[in-house]
């Protein structure tokens, strides 16, 4: 399968998807660790996470998919939300909690 199609299926097949370096239990980058931590702080414990260090095609493919050059990347209901700085800003303003609550209620 084409990697762009694979990513499309991943982000539309799960309400909350985080592309990260490492896993939520063993993150391998501070930014990815923060992103996973923020999701947990929002009460989202069972998000779908993809370890891009295990798949070079996804690691590069996801940058093209969102037209966003860095990882982590958060998707909610198939929509690209942002990286760790944007997640932190949205968490601090309460916007992220609202978005995630609405997404999980679907």
């Amino acid at each position, binding site marked *: 399968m084409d990697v762009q199609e694979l990513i499309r299926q991943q982000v539309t097949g799960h309400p909350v998807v985080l592309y990260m370096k490492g896993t939520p239990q063993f993150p391998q*980058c501070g*930014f990815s660790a923060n992103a996973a931590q923020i999701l947990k702080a929002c009460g989202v414990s069972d998000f779908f996470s993809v370890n891009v260090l295990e798949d070079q095609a996804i690691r590069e493919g996801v940058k093209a998919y969102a037209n966003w050059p860095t990882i982590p990347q958060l998707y909610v209901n198939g929509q690209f939300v942002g990286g760790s700085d944007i997640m932190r800003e949205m968490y601090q303003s309460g916007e992220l909690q609202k978005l995630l609550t609405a997404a999980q209620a679907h």
Partner: protein
Amino acid sequence: MDNTIGLMRQRLAALEPQDLHIEDESAAHAGHAGARSGGGHYRLTIVSPRFAGMNSLARHRSIYAALGDLMQGSIHALSITALSPDEL
């Protein structure tokens, strides 16, 4: 010593910043698994009137667009704070 910060400043001039700070935080991240590509870690604070009326996503996208190929090579990770002058 490389000139990544100088290049970043040149590229970001396109956004007409009225304030621009770039810190090199590479030393704090040396050796972790995600840093194997060798690019540096930077923290950017930029204030530009261009950001007025733009959400964070759009601000970050315009910064990435201005940095262009630096994001694929010299810059491994970039932490961004992007403000418009009225947010100071």
